[in-house]
């Protein structure tokens, strides 16, 4: 009897807590429009996760400063996904419970998969900020949309851009990639289409993004001596790779990152200056000619004291896409908003691409990465022409 009594007593304590849970977040404010944001705000992806939220805040503030949506103010509700699938799913339901008009997120692919399913179940629109997995929108979901290119998109860009970089004496390729979803996805896809480029893959080197050194892999690259090196990975590991290459003065005829977390980042060029000159990267980027770009970069720098990581532009853009759809829908009704999103045809944005238009599956049909080259310690778009800030510089004159 006493055991059961204990059980009942403890249950009462817990029940009281759970009800206190329901009590929070029930503020009633019907004159704001809430948008949910699910990103990893703690754990090993927290840097990017927080950057997404930061850029989203800038977008929300900008729209509100311009009078909001049909007179109503936007409000961003950011929840930590904890970097886990379960955490992201709970976060999604919590946000839906708060009556958000749409969800955004999630940077990690696993979380995005789970949130898109939750969004489908509850019929709430979900705009992916960044999540590159090619299988994300293959389940026929009606409520999920992705602005950014998938791993397949980036890899196709590589196949498309390689003729502009390749010289006749380049024959061999080695790919060094982090071994999760994103790195593997890109590497495998490039491998499957490499024949179209006339190149030959002589090495596939997967590594763990949590590796504490890449010396051995770099040494392996030296012995393979490819004409083109394709590094794919996150910031810290690719930074380690680059440091190794630069310190050891190892060069290849071409180094072409694909969706490289480091090469396109301002911190990277700040660290290495001109030492990384000549590195290419095929990646997402802002349109340098857009006024919005200038605004976002400046605002981010002023508010947070650092350069915006490139991926975070999609945080900003996701809010803009939702705002655009909200204006057209004229309501926050999920169904109406979803239909408005599906009919998106947005020409004014800060991405280096044509209009943002979603296809049946929810992919942005014009999404594309651009070709960037590091020149004089700065990332410069060199292709496609309409966004180019400079020409490709061949044959880095090495004077070391």
């Amino acid at each position: 009897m006493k055991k059961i009594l204990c059980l009942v007593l403890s249950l009462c304590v817990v029940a009281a807590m759970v009800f206190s849970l329901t009590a929070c977040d029930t503020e009633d404010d019907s004159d704001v429009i809430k948008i949910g944001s699910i990103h990893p705000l703690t754990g090993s992806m927290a840097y990017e996760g927080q950057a997404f939220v930061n850029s989203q805040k800038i977008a929300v503030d900008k729209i509100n400063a311009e009078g909001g949506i049909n007179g109503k103010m936007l409000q961003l509700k950011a929840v930590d996904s904890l970097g886990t699938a379960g955490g992201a799913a709970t976060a999604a339901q919590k946000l839906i419970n708060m009556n958000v008009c749409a969800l955004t997120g999630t940077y990690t692919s696993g979380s995005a998969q789970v949130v898109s399913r939750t969004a489908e179940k509850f019929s709430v629109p979900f705009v992916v900020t960044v999540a590159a997995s090619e299988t994300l929108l293959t389940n026929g979901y009606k409520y999920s949309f992705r602005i950014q290119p998938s791993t397949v998109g980036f890899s196709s860009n590589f196949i498309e851009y390689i003729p502009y970089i390749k010289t006749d004496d380049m024959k061999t390729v080695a790919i060094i990639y982090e071994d999760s979803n994103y790195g593997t996805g890109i590497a495998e896809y490039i491998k499957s289409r490499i024949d179209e480029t006339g190149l030959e893959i002589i090495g596939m080197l997967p590594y763990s993004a949590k590796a504490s050194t890449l010396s051995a892999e770099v040494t392996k690259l030296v012995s393979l001596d490819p004409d083109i090196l394709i590094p794919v990975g996150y910031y810290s590991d690719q930074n380690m790779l680059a440091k190794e290459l630069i310190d050891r003065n190892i060069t290849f005829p071409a180094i072409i990152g694909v969706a490289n977390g480091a090469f396109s980042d301002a911190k990277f060029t700040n660290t290495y200056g001109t030492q990384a000159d000549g590195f290419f990267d095929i990646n997402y980027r802002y349109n340098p000619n857009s006024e919005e770009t200038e605004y976002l970069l400046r605002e981010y720098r002023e508010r947070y004291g650092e350069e915006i990581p490139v991926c975070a532009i999609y945080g900003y853009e996701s809010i803009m896409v939702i705002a655009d759809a909200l204006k057209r829908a004229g309501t926050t009704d999920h169904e109406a908003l979803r239909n408005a999103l599906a009919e998106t045809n947005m020409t004014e944005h800060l991405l280096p691409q044509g209009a943002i238009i979603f296809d049946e599956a929810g992919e942005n049909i014009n999404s594309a990465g651009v070709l960037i080259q590091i020149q004089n310690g700065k990332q410069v778009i060199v292709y496609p022409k309409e966004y180019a800030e400079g020409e490709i510089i061949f044959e880095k004159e090495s004077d070391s």
Partner: protein
Amino acid sequence: MNMQFFQAFLDGTLMGGVYALAALGLSLIFGVMKITNFAHGAMMTVGMYAVYVVSTSLGISPYIALVFAAITLFALGYIIQHFLIDKISDAPTHNQLLLTLGVAYILENGLLAVFSPNYKTLNVDDFDGAIQLGAISISPEKLVAFAVVLIVTAVIYIVLYKTRIGKAIRACSQNKEGAKLMGIVIKKTNAVAFGIGALCTGIAGALLTPILSIYPTLGETFQLKCFVIAILGGMGNLWGALISGLIVGIVESLTGYIAGGSWSDLTVYAAFILILLVKPSGLFGRSNRREH
């Protein structure tokens, strides 16, 4: 073998030295307290941030800032042992383990809250690129790290074998009851031992700061590796930890060179399980498995 193979071997050796130092701290803590410290990785990261902060704010070389990291970590280790672990020294193993895990959460997220999750890269002006010896290139940061590891290990050895507190620590690790009878204050000795263990880890973290971009959860990646090395060397065995650190570094590097980095961890863990099963006292430990 060819030069590249030798290069990979050399890189593995240098990195292995740093692993060894980190694992040595863990090994010492286990040897004395019989506690598996799951906050070890987080403590390592604290060491990295300590160097980063001191080095950038005072504008001094990270190798001088290292001293501050060592002191910080010693204090941190002392506090953790004195105020937390000591209080539950009689609790079952899993409670102690979970406690250190809780401490790890606090440390990691404390760093996250204070320093933001942004990657921090420390530029070392002391060096300019790698040292080239024919076809072999040596990273000066790693070379210095290796030298510091050897020095620190030697100092720890002297402390443990020549000083009073060191002898007390060793006595505690061999026989707690006996040590108590000899008038050794267990509580203080344990705290000092934990402090020294933390200090080793902190220095290891500090030595890696110029090589890596640091972020709050970075230490996690070293955690399991440290366990592997400490057990391989025999928990509580100083030289065992040093040598197995080198072995793990070399195995990791050569696997990375031959099969790709994805397989490095697998090789290391598989070797670890094998050692655990076949010779749980470690490669160099005498078989002192409890027979009762």
